[in-house]
Structures are given as C-alpha cells and as structure tokens.
C-alpha cells in the first residue's frame, strides 16, 4: 500500500477530486497548508509597515491506495492539477506499513 501525498493549488481541489473518483479512489483527506517552492511570495503594505509574505496557501491531499494503482493515481493528479504555471505543486509517494478501517476492523487493502 502507498500513501500518495500531493501539494496542489487550492482552486484545483475539485478537479483533482473528480479525477481521482474517475480512477476508482474512494476516499481522500485534504488540509489547508502554506508552502513555497519556486513560486515567490508577495508583499503586503499596512500604512507604514511592509510585510514580505513568503508562504502561499496550498492544499495538501492524501490518498491511500493499493501499490498497483499508484501509477494511475499519480497520473490522474498530474493531469487535473497542472496549470503549467510555477507553483503547481509536488507529489510524494510513501509506503504504508498498516491500514485499519476503524468501524469494521478490516485491515490493509480491505481498509482502503
């Protein structure tokens, strides 16, 4: 099992969700985060004070999938989250040692 973590632009969340549903993913977790990569921040001015804001709002989604489906899931995310502009984000894939469905006690692939 793998955990696919994607940092994407916030307005792309619905597109990515639709794409993942289309490849058969049945659940995901999304959180609001801040981050930066090559996309620079901006400056905010409040009367006499100037603040450089380096962190930009992003959405982090996490999807747990069976190992054989990782390829399809990553491609679906890329296709739906891409705009071609700096700041589109990144995808990381990590291993999952164990997964459990809390309600039923099902484990591993049955829990995904």
């Amino acid at each position, binding site marked *: 099992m793998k955990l696919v973590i994607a940092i994407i632009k916030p307005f792309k969340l619905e597109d990515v969700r639709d794409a993942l549903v289309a490849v058969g993913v049945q659940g995901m977790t999304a959180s609001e985060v801040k981050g930066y990569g090559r996309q620079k921040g901006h400056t905010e001015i409040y*009367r006499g004070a100037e603040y450089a804001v380096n962190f930009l709002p992003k959405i982090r989604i996490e999807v747990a999938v069976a190992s054989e489906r990782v390829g399809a899931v990553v491609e679906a995310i890329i296709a739906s989250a891409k705009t071609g502009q700096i700041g589109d984000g990144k995808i990381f894939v990590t291993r999952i040692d164990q997964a459990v469905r809390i309600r039923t006690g099902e484990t591993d692939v049955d829990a995904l």
Partner: protein
Amino acid sequence: MTRDTIRMACGFAAALSLGFAAAPAMAQETAAKIDAADTAWMISATALVLLMTIPGLALFYSGMVRKKNVLATMAQSVACTALCSLLWFALGYSLSFVGDGPWLGRFDRLFLRGIGMESTSAFAPAIPEVLYVTYQMTFAIITVALIAGAVADRMRFSAFLWFCAGWLIFVYVPITHWVWGGGFLASAGVLDFAGGTVVQLNAGIAGLIAAYVLGKRQGYGTDNLAPHDLSLAVIGMGLLWVGWLGFSGGSALGANSRAAFAITATHLAASTGALTWMFLEWWTRRKPSVLGLITGAIAGLATITPASGFVLPWHGVVIGLFGGAFCFWACTWLKLRIGYDDSLDVFGVHGVGGATGTLLTGVFAVAALSASPDSPEGSAGLLEGNARQVLIQFYAVIAVIIWSGVLTYLLLKAVEFFLPLRVSEQHEIEGLDLTQHGQALQ
C-alpha cells in the same frame, strides 16, 4: 485570583464606596426653558457618540491587531466605557463643567447631586443638565479608549484600567475644563467645536507617550504583524464616521442650522480625507489599500473635529484634504523616522489630525456660524481678517501637548511603580486574549 486582581478589586471598592452613600437631593431650580427639539436631537447624538466607542472603536482597532489579541483589544474599549462612565458620573462632570475657575471646576455636582428635572448647565441652556452630563460622558469615554490603540498587543489589562481611571481624572478633566468648561483656554478665546484639542490631540499625545514608555512590540520591524481581519476595521470605521455626525452635530448642543453645517463639513472632510489618502497611497505604493482608505476617512474626521461648527462646507473639503495628507505623512514617513511603535497610529491620525484641525480652525472660522444672542459678532478666523485667532489656537495646542504629555508620562510611571505596564514576554507571544482574559477566538 492573582495579586493584580485583588489589588484592583480593593482599590475600586474603596474608591467607589465613598460616594454612593449620599443620596442626591432633587433640587428644583428655575432655569432656562428646556427645548424639546434640542433635547431630542441631543439624546440621539449621545447614542451616536456612544456607538463610536462601542462597538465602533472596538471593531476598528481589533480588526487591525493580530488574531491572538482581537478579544483583548475589544475588552479595552468595553471596559474603558464602563469605567469612565462611572468616574465621569462620580466626579468627572463636576470638575469639568461646574465652576469657572481657570484651572479646574468644583465638586458641587459630585455624583450629580442637585441635578433635577429642570436643571440646565450654563453651557447648554436648552437641554436638561443630566443629558449634557451624559453627552459629555461619551466624549470622555472615546478619548480614553483611543489611547489603547497606541499600546495595542502589549499592555497589561490591570495596568490599563488603572491608567484609564487616572488619565480621565488628571488629564482629560482639566483639559476639558480649560477648553469647554470656562477655564483659561476658553477665556483666551480658543475655538474647539467638538474636541480637536480635548479629544483628538489629547489622546494622540497620550498615545505617543504611552507607546514610548511601554516600548515596541516584540518583532516590530522584523515579524509579520499583519491585521487579523480588516473587514472588522472597515465596519468599525463606518460606525465611527456615522457616529461622528453626533460628535460634531451634537456639539452644537441644539437642533439647529449650526448642527447641520457641522454635520456637513464633517462628512465632507471624511470623504476628502479618504480620497486624499487613497490617491497618495496609489501614487506612492502603486495600490490603494483598504486600510489606507479607511484611515484617510478617520484622519479627515479627526482634523475637522475642532472646526466643524465654525466653517462652511467647502472649508470641510479643504480641511479634509490637509488632514488626509498630513496624517498620511505622519503615519508613513514621520513614524519610521522617529522610530516609535504606536501600533494603531493614535498619534499619527488623532494627534496630528487634531493639531492640524485646531490650527486650521483659526484660519477658516466664519463668524456668522458662531454668532448667537450671547455673542453677536461670532468668532472669525484668519480668512475673515482675524489673524490673531491662529495664534490663540496655537497656544491651545501647546498647552494641551504639554499637559497631556507630561501628565501621561507621570501617570504611567506611577502605575508602573505598582504594576508592570506590559505583559511578560512569553504572554505577549502567546497573545493577550488567552493570557489576560482566558479566552480565544476559535
């Protein structure tokens, strides 16, 4: 309970238990006839000015601080309102407006004793005296509440309360008496319609001193101290702007043409101030910020305050322009140059605006507007040939700067002898909401 709170409670109990024992006598006096229309307007004006502090100023200020201090900033406005109201009732009014000594009033109206249904004040003969008390109370409240902006994000709540109480009695009351209560500045012919010196400059100077004494916020100049929610500040500004119609219009102390002129000049000054700041920012920073727009409006309002009932509508426009421009300069250039951390620009907007407006009143005052049966010639300014008025206004500005500055400093040092003025470094980092009040925005 902490040591701070126990000290506070004992102090208040001792101070207030004195007077409530005495039952006020309801003396029936023969006085000038109370006018129904004037009274109706003044009651409305009182409500408008009270709205300026709660929730006007509370929203305006708390929208500009960081999230962890929003509730604490609001608490300052609310607590200040309650505390100053009681102190004004107890002795503030009497010492300000009763008796015509040059320096201070008398204790005749302590706890408003002797005020009856027919009583009137010599300063407002057409309305009930008790209404004059309450109307002036709302001015006292907002003046004290304004100072909180200069020390936002770092002042200990207990020290703040003691400071408010002391400042009202030792700074606000004397200056009010001097300018409005028949004191030496009134005798000198100072023109201050709605509080350019008494409220704006006074609070502004006190704010500057307080910002200096308390020191800069942690992270000032390096950290991101951006406002939590400017939409609150915009709403607060709206309440202040509309409430100012009561501030200015009510200072006519009657439902008359002068009140209407005051309201008009006030509104035009706010409008011009807002646009002036907006254009200046657009020109110097490439974007017109919302904070700039609302600050410009308040700057215009602060500047027109002493002049509103003395000037024509077009003067209001010019005064608003000067106010917007000078305050913009003070908040962006002067502040950085001098290097003080007046968190919410109490000095830059209210201090500079109040002083500017006071001097401009001496320039633009139109005799026709202030003519009355008591003073048929009215008060004229420079443009009508009375150059001396500008000097008199300048005299008032200096007097207020000196008294407010020195006494505020001494008062802060006195409070500091008993209590630290600032919260601890750790508490400042955690935020005042949680550490001073045990609550937080979720």
